[in-house]
């Protein structure tokens, strides 16, 4: 590996100074794609015909990157890692990708994922399981599993992800890289296969905060094809990135991070929360005030169920267009109902079917008040509670998950009920549409763990600056996965 372990700004300087050509970068990235495909099963499609592009003053020009397979890419297979779209070739490109193309960015592969983003393990896609490059017996987490594995392996400096619950930020943590989803509506979702529209965000996985800022600058913008986008033209994340964060303040939720709240905590959890403490101290060392805030445990524990109800309900409806009648493999049967049933029965994995059943159930007239409407109320309550704190603090800082990447076979992982709120709190960022970034903040037995910073809507710059300053206090920026033995 000569180039692809470098950052966007480093590569850009080398391209401008003619130390390397865009063609050479693309060629190396394609070679690495095949290696990482063999090792991690990270891709649905590798674009072997990809060529370098023009190099301009634009930081992204001529540099290869990866696209999660739920982004539509014109004339390229785009499956969402689902059998229902296993041969689907869109005739239009997602706005976010189109925007990157305007900056001269070069896509080299489409990354594998949990089917339609509806999973957190990277094990449910139609091309099989994505393995964690740090330890191939472990998962990457999902759903942006292929993107995380590829960026962590150094296939290119960045890959696109999407995030409905934690699908960028969790795999970033498990793979020791940066994962950022900006405020809802900053990046157009046009052309992104929907999972749950009110929670879906586009975003990016990188190896540094600056790279995340550069890429989102390139992806974002108001889009007349997505009514939920807003004009962010005055926001220039990379230009205004600064490590001067003196006087900023963060809060953490005591109920989630104080070890006393867990009975018989595992060594891993203890270590994970110690690392978090160390991270808090680093924050304080650069002038950020960090305080613990107490939030009703009942409310915190309601988050995962709220997420399941809302996301499954929207997903059921969003994915009812997948019938195999207009696109996707045509099912067999004597009438359209049989044809659709056959297509959907064969096409979807059991996990998705389960979610569809939940989604339908909670939307039924007799259940809607009890489940769907109540979930929306809890969502509002959670968002209001957190927004209340944002009046006092610049952001929320919390450890990502309960430790390191889980084992693929699941046998060695102890499942606990009392850690579910810690495992799933990143969903708060989706409930509120908050800007949210995960960066690596330590290791447990050679495997990376991450910390997350989430801020108020439209306050992306502040969130990135804090993450940028914090990143500088640690040695994990730009790290490439080193396989543990």
């Amino acid at each position, binding site marked *: 590996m000569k180039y692809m372990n470098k950052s966007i700004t480093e590569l850009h300087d080398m391209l401008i100074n003619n130390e390397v050509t865009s063609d050479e970068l693309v060629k190396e990235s394609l070679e690495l794609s095949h290696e990482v495909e063999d090792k991690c099963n990270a891709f649905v499609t590798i674009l072997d015909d990809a060529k370098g592009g023009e190099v301009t003053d634009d930081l992204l020009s001529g540099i290869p990157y990866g696209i999660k397979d739920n982004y539509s890419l014109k004339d390229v297979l785009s499956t969402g890692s689902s059998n229902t779209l296993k041969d689907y070739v869109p005739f239009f490109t997602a706005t976010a990708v189109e925007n990157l193309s305007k900056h001269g960015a070069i896509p080299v592969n489409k990354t594998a994922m949990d089917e339609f983003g509806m999973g957190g393990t990277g094990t449910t896609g139609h091309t099989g399981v994505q393995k964690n490059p740090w330890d191939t017996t472990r998962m990457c987490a999902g759903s942006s599993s292929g993107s995380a594995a590829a960026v962590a392996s150094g296939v290119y400096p960045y890959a696109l992800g999407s995030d409905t619950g934690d699908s960028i930020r969790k795999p970033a943590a498990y793979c020791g890289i940066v994962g950022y989803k900006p405020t809802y509506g900053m990046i157009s979702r046009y052309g*992104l296969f929907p999972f749950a529209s009110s929670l879906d965000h586009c975003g990016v996985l990188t190896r540094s905060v600056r790279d995340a800022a550069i890429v989102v600058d390139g992806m974002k913008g108001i889009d007349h094809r997505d009514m939920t986008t807003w004009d962010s033209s005055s926001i220039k994340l990379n230009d205004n990135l600064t490590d001067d964060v003196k006087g900023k303040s963060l809060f953490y939720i005591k109920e989630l991070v104080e070890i006393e709240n867990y009975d018989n905590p595992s060594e891993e959890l203890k270590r994970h929360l110690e690392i978090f403490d160390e991270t808090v101290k680093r924050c304080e060392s650069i002038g950020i005030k960090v305080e613990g805030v107490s939030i009703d445990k009942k409310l915190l524990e309601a988050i995962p169920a709220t997420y399941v109800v809302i996301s499954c309900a929207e997903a059921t409806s969003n994915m009812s267009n997948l019938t195999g*009648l207009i696109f996707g493999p045509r099912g067999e049967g004597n009438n359209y109902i049989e044809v659709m049933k056959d297509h959907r029965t064969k096409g979807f994995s059991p996990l998705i079917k389960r979610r569809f059943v939940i989604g339908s159930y909670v939307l039924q007239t007799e259940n809607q008040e009890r489940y769907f409407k109540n979930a929306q109320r809890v969502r509002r309550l959670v968002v209001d509670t957190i927004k209340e704190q944002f009046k006092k603090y610049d952001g929320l800082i919390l450890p990502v998950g309960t430790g390191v990447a889980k084992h693929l076979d699941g046998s060695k992982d102890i499942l606990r009920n009392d850690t579910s709120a810690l495992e799933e709190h990143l969903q708060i960022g989706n409930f509120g549409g908050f800007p949210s970034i995960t960066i690596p903040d330590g290791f447990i037995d050679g495997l990376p763990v991450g910390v997350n910073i989430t801020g108020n809507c439209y306050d992306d710059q502040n969130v990135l600056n804090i993450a940028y300053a914090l990143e500088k206090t640690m040695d994990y920026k730009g790290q490439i996965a080193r396989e543990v033995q």
Partner: protein
Amino acid sequence: MGKYNVTIGLEMHCEVSETKSKVFSSSKNEYTDIPNANISPYDMGFPGVLPVLNKEAVRMSLMMSMILNCRQPEYMYFERKNYYYPDMPKNYQITQNPPEDCVGMEGYIDIIREDGSTFRVGIDNIHLEEDAASMNHLYDTSVIDYNRAGVPLLELVTKPDLHSADDAVAFLEYIRAIYQYCGISEADSKKGQIRCDVNVSISDGETLGTKVEVKNVNSFSGVRETINYEIKRQSELKDAGRYDEVVQETRRWDEESGTTIRMRSKVDAEDYKYFVEPNIPRYKISKEWLEEIRASIPELPYERKEKYMQEYGLSDYDAGILVKDINIAKYFEKTISLGVDAKTAANWITGNILGYTYKYEIQIQELYLTPERLTVILDSMRDGKISSKQAKELFYMVLERLEEPADIMKKEGMQQISDDGAIIAIVSEVLNENLSQIEEYKAGKTNMFDYFVGQVMKKTRGQANPVKVKEILTEELAKR
């Protein structure tokens, strides 16, 4: 009608045909016979497409809401109605879900019957949604045309305030006229732009009877027949003591047999699992915009009718017919702007012209006989160049031959003979040939006069000016 109280409620779907693009996509909103010509990825539900609300469609909907004296919502938002059917490729329809807020709530409209009496129809709601694709079921296959998918559709739901087929049709005709007058829709049922669901029940007391819904009645004559058929069917069952056979169900109108046919029971009604459409952010409708829309409501049919009666002295009946369809009103106004007397124009339009358009089922604006051509005919008649009989003949010739009236008049040698000398000559000729008849006339058989007139007209192939003929004939007979 009959001995039972009849209660009717209507749901009238009208496509908004006058926006440039569809309600949630940028494809053209234009009727065409070429299948799948006006479509976009959104209309076909491809993965990753998103709805973008057409502001013009909302403006038109709010205008309609105001005309129907409805309450407008503070916030605009939409809901998803989830159901699987191939005419709706997303398998959900973006619509509004009253009694949740929609473009118009709780209004009313007053309708004037042909006899001048009025009645009020309560409006439950009017809401904006996207139309489905149109399907054609062939022998062993079905074909889908997505041109119609996503066309803005306004669904108007009345209160059960109607009590006869006549009133129901009068209501629908008036609403259709409003759509046309406001430039919202052509409201042409032949293009499938209007579709109605009809709810009918009968009772012999105060409490309402069992409501039967008849879906997808696609013409006003169909609505009339449906209502009358249902009243008859339900009454007969009630008369026979079998009213329990009238059940809450959905039926459909079968044009061929002139009957309604059971589709499904209301009990198996589908659960549409409505929820708020997350891709269209809820937005506040400003007071300023509402005022702007209100100020832009054009002259409506009843106002125009009043004008025709006051300014042009037309009868209630004629004025009523002229304003029913904006294209007829436009034709009328164009004709009088070309100098034709209003009453003459009204007589010709309500008589000959509408007789012709109804007979051949064409639209007045499609006639070869434009107001300009009509004016040539009527002016020639007024100036005595042709007789009224000739004018009528010329009218049909123009429509059949698609030739200019002036050319036909020339070719056919059509002109009225008003020259005294020529008429005297012909009258003398006729009298000379009918000497015995003159004697009968002189003997007191005065109706022989008409016989002589007839003979003169026959000889001149109707070209003689009948007034002149009568004058000269009287004089000539006196001489004999």
